[in-house]
């Protein structure tokens, strides 16, 4: 064996491009991803006449919080925000409790039809929400669940739960069953093995799944559009959509709303990035 071959630095692809070229590509990726977000922020901070100026200014000459004052004082933004949090929390709690128990059963107990259930879950994971638009709307009307935050949360279960089951099943499968056997041999009972061996290992996966479920509910536009008509029950997606139908479209206001919705998502995202990376390995994205 030739020395050095195995410990060569991880230059997987030789030198495909010079260092400058690599940095140019990185910069290109950065601008492509970040510029629209930058533009949203600066547009929300410009005074009205500068917002519509030609040529557009890359950095505002005059900074102004007018759009934010209007957002909080003249619109129901705060109500929409609270409603969205309520719906997303209800959805996430139900989905995670049922999903964790169900995924554990699917990976740790042998019973007839288990493979079939797993396959159906995969299929349901692929279901696009639009397929369930008409039946869920008619059923919600039938049961008096239109104009209800609970009704909205229940419709999100229809696509969030199969999705959570599918990801959680992958997480539980990746935890070696031998660890549990070892705990049982050492005299632990099944509940103790679950609490002290499986759960700590599964926790990153459960948190990642909870985040994805929360995002599914947080981002939905379709079901809120057809199920919620009352202004004080609207979620952010349809509330912000209404800004577009005002007599004069106030782009500053819409961009300010965008910033205010994005900041919590950004903070949340940075706080839990570690867990999200765990989730990506298991194919935990949808939409």
């Amino acid at each position, binding site marked *: 064996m030739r020395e050095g071959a195995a410990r060569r630095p991880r230059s997987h692809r030789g030198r495909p491009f010079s260092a400058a070229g690599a940095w140019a590509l990185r910069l290109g990726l950065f601008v492509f991803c970040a510029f629209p*977000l930058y533009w949203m922020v600066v547009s929300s901070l410009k005074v009205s006449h500068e917002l519509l100026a030609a040529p557009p200014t890359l950095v505002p000459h005059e900074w102004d919080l007018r759009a934010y004052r209007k957002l909080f004082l003249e619109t129901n933004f705060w109500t929409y925000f609270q409603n969205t949090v309520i719906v997303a929390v209800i959805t996430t709690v139900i989905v995670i*409790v049922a*999903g964790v128990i169900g995924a554990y*059963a699917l990976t740790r107990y042998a019973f007839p039809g288990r493979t079939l259930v797993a396959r159906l879950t995969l299929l349901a994971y692929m279901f696009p929400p639009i*397929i369930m638009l008409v039946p869920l709307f008619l059923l919600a009307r039938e049961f008096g669940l239109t104009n209800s935050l609970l009704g909205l949360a229940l419709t999100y279960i229809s696509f969030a739960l199969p999705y959570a089951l599918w990801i959680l099943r992958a997480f539980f499968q990746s935890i070696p069953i031998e660890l549990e056997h070892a705990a049982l041999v050492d005299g632990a009972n099944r509940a103790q093995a679950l609490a002290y061996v499986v759960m700590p290992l599964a926790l990153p996966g459960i948190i990642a799944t909870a985040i994805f479920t929360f995002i599914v509910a947080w*981002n939905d536009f*379709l079901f809120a559009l057809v199920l919620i008509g009352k202004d004080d029950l609207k979620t952010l*997606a349809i509330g912000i959509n209404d800004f577009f139908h005002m007599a004069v479209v106030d782009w500053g206001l819409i961009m300010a709303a965008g910033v205010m919705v994005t900041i919590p*998502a950004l903070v949340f995202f940075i706080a839990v990035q570690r867990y999200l990376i765990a989730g990506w390995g298991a194919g935990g994205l949808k939409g």
Partner: protein
Amino acid sequence: MWRRRREALIGMGLLLPSAALVLAFTLFPVGYNVWLGFYAKHSLRATSAWVGLDNYAQILVDPDFWRSVWLATVYAVASTALQIVAGVAGALILHRRFPGCDFLRGVALFPYMIPTIIAVFVWRWLMNDLYGVIPYALGALAIPGMPEAWLTHSTIMWVLVVLSVWTFFPFVLVNVLARLQTIPPELYDAARVDGASPVGQFFNVTLPQLRNVLLIVLLLRGIWMFTKFDVPWLLGFGGGAGEAIRTLPVFTYQRSFTYYQAGMGAALSNVMLALLLMAVTLYFVAFPPEADENDA
């Protein structure tokens, strides 16, 4: 024997809550939808009448339906292909570590994390016919034949595709990056010893290793782009220039909630469901899944 039966009962008992919820909220509505497709039903009033296959017969001769299928296909094919190109390129850029690598990985994922409605409205503003910064910048380049306004009938599909690639390419990036990290470096060493150029290494080592993940990503993104409602709807609101991006999901929504033809809307959803099942079946025939590792 007794122990195994007890195991099975506990397992089924634990599965019961989620199985009941999936049955009630996912499978039952899908079944109900199949049944609704045979009815002429108003979305708000209680009137409904059995019409057999009439809805489907009407769909098949409706030029607007075929147009929406065509537009959805164009949208799905163009946006999925570009997402995969952008996602693989992004993953290759972020694969090797460099100063600021983690920061850029976070930034690259962000378009996927912000709500769809914000993504669409930011792009409507970026591309605004009067005040948009991108049309202004493109106009400054003075390329002959470049349109002055982009949210028009003839160009709005391009905006829809670019905006969708921006929003959804991180999905491809994440999945490809996760797979890239697991390719053994020895494969590249071997290829280098054989004298493969960087481009040759990409096609002979990287791409074959990425084959499975790319096939899954292609299936999922293809299905989800074909059935995407909110992005085309919010970009065009179904009317005006939006007519040029009235894809099958938008058409389905309008049948159900603009014309209140719930039965017709259900039938259109069933067409999408049938296409989805066909795609999944074809996929699993072409690429049979490996045996379930936990099955006894």
